[in-house]
């Protein structure tokens, strides 16, 4: 079995871990690290009867995940202290939101940058307050800066000068150039307060964001982790609320995200046996291609399926912006690549 496939299988059925040969363990650990799912794997697999080296690796991974979670929640609190006086809603997104909301998707999850959503009208004030509180531009470049501000769904990334942690300040959840334009005001209006001055997206919006992030933005590199998020979110929300699938369907339509959310549910069911209504199950021919891309990882941690990856890379640019704009963007980027060497 290919390592990407093995990883998905063991995540979905942790009992399979008891049957693995040493070489499979090595491949599984390596693939899980490469997909940033090692912390998740460590929490899924029971630590009772594991080979010693595996138990040691997974123990370290659990430990690292705990530490990352602590650091991420602390960073969110630092952001809250810097911004609470503005009186605007502060909505956490992705990993930090899962951890802060106590969701199953947050268990063992790798958390990198802090992702924040605020109303677009508040963006200048948020930016000023963050700069005043010790955040700095991570990559100051005139073209990138202008590009972010005009076309992206977030400010250029800011880095805290003392804690060396990155924050991405979003005003919506997809680039403005993408084919789909979710309703950012509705996302913020529907957000759920956590009681500590911070918010997270409402359950359907959280799934929609995860689905758009994976299937409507980017080339699916490292996407297995995002699909695992989707599996956990769908399971948890549909267990808590019997009408969740109906609400998700209606809300996805409002954001114009129906096909992406349906794709997310189908692939989660394919790879992780996520339960869901039969109406959501009708397979598409292209699902097999997405599955191939998501599992393109070998037992040495290398990406495989070069052509499939190339196709998804091209797709990522195609769906991100209209053709003429894409041509101009690539021209600017290419010119910069062959531009004069920096002084030494």
């Amino acid at each position, binding site marked *: 079995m290919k390592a990407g496939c093995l990883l998905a299988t063991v995540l979905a059925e942790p009992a399979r871990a008891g049957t693995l040969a*040493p070489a499979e*363990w*090595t491949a599984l*650990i*390596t693939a899980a*690290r*490469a997909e940033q799912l090692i912390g998740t794997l460590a929490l899924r697999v029971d630590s009772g009867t594991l*080979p010693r*080296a*595996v138990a*040691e*690796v997974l*123990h*370290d991974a659990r*430990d*690292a995940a705990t*530490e990352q979670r*602590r650091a991420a929640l602390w960073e969110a609190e630092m952001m809250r202290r810097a911004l609470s006086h503005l009186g605007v809603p502060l909505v956490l997104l992705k990993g930090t939101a899962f951890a802060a909301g106590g969701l199953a998707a947050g268990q063992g999850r790798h958390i990198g940058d802090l992702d924040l959503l605020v109303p677009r009208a508040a963006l200048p004030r948020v930016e000023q307050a963050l700069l005043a509180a010790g955040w700095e531009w991570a990559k100051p470049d005139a073209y990138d800066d202008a590009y972010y501000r005009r076309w992206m769904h977030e400010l250029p990334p800011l880095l805290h000068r003392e804690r060396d942690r990155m924050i991405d300040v979003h005003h919506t959840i997809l680039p403005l150039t993408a084919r789909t334009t979710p309703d950012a005001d509705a996302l913020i209006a529907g957000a759920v307060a956590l009681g500590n001055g911070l918010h997270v997206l409402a359950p359907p919006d959280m799934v929609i964001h995860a689905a758009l992030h994976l299937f409507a933005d980017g080339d699916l590199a490292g996407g297995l982790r995002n699909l695992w998020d989707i599996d956990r979110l769908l399971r948890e929300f549909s267990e808590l609320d019997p009408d969740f699938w109906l609400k998700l369907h209606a809300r996805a339509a409002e954001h114009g995200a129906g096909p992406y959310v349906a794709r997310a549910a189908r692939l989660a069911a394919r790879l992780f046996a996520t339960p869901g209504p039969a109406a959501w199950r009708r397979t598409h021919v292209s699902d097999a291609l997405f599955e191939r891309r998501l599992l393109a990882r070998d037992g*040495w*941690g*290398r990406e495989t399926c070069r052509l499939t990856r190339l196709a998804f890379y091209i797709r990522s640019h195609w769906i991100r912006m209209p053709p003429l704009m894409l041509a101009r963007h690539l021209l600017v980027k290419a010119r910069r690549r062959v531009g004069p060497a920096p002084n030494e």
Partner: protein
Amino acid sequence: MSFRVGPVGFRVGSDFAALIATLRALYADYPGPEIAHFTVRLPATAPWRRFLRPSVAIEGDYMLPDAAPLPLAQGLLAAEMAMNLQVALGHRRHLLLHASCVERDGRAIIMTGESGAGKSTLATLLGARGWRFMGDEFVLVDPMTGDVYAFPRAISLKNEAIGVVQHAIPGGRFGPLLRNTPKGDIRHLMPTPDAIARMDEPARPALLLFPAFGASRDVREVGSVEAFVRLTQASTNYTALGERGFDALADLVERVPARAIDYPDGQTALAMVEALWEAA
């Protein structure tokens, strides 16, 4: 190929069969784990770079985005750097100190300092004088017991140290001389069979040394606060371990006396270390 260095198992793969063969020969005495803790990849930087100006990329479970590749002639250094990187970024069972270490009668001397301070050379020379060599890159402190564990991979000798050690240990198992690497000339020396056979034996830290090569002979007492601050800088995972790292390090500097020693040459340093050891 797979081999275990102290408590860490590595799996190393490369496009270059000759590089793997060299590693296999150097690490022949090390046990081969069934399941490695870390995977190291040393591929060609591009398909044609297997043959044309062959060039080795430094990859693995943990990577640095700006790690510069090395020419194949320096492949052993690439392997060393990739292994170090896995441990530095991925290993959390122990507090890691960037230091060399030797043991006698179950008690250890930990030596740490900037690159060029002579910590590898000192540990190697002590290893040839009745001490057990425990490592020249990382010392692993067990946060539960305070004991230190060995990480005796191939000793990485640089520049003048190569001649000094070749002269002192003429029968040593040396690797090929790597000229003009980003770190100068490098030659690897394998630890003695005894150091490898006993690599799983922990030791009690008994003396902390901060050696500095070049100045005239001098010994200074280092207070526990200064030792603590110096060791936070010498640890690659102190921050990542959180409170556990703080406790382990605070315990170490309170328990173990620390000295800074300046020395003009290897013989003087050895005499100073032996004298401090007798007094400790």
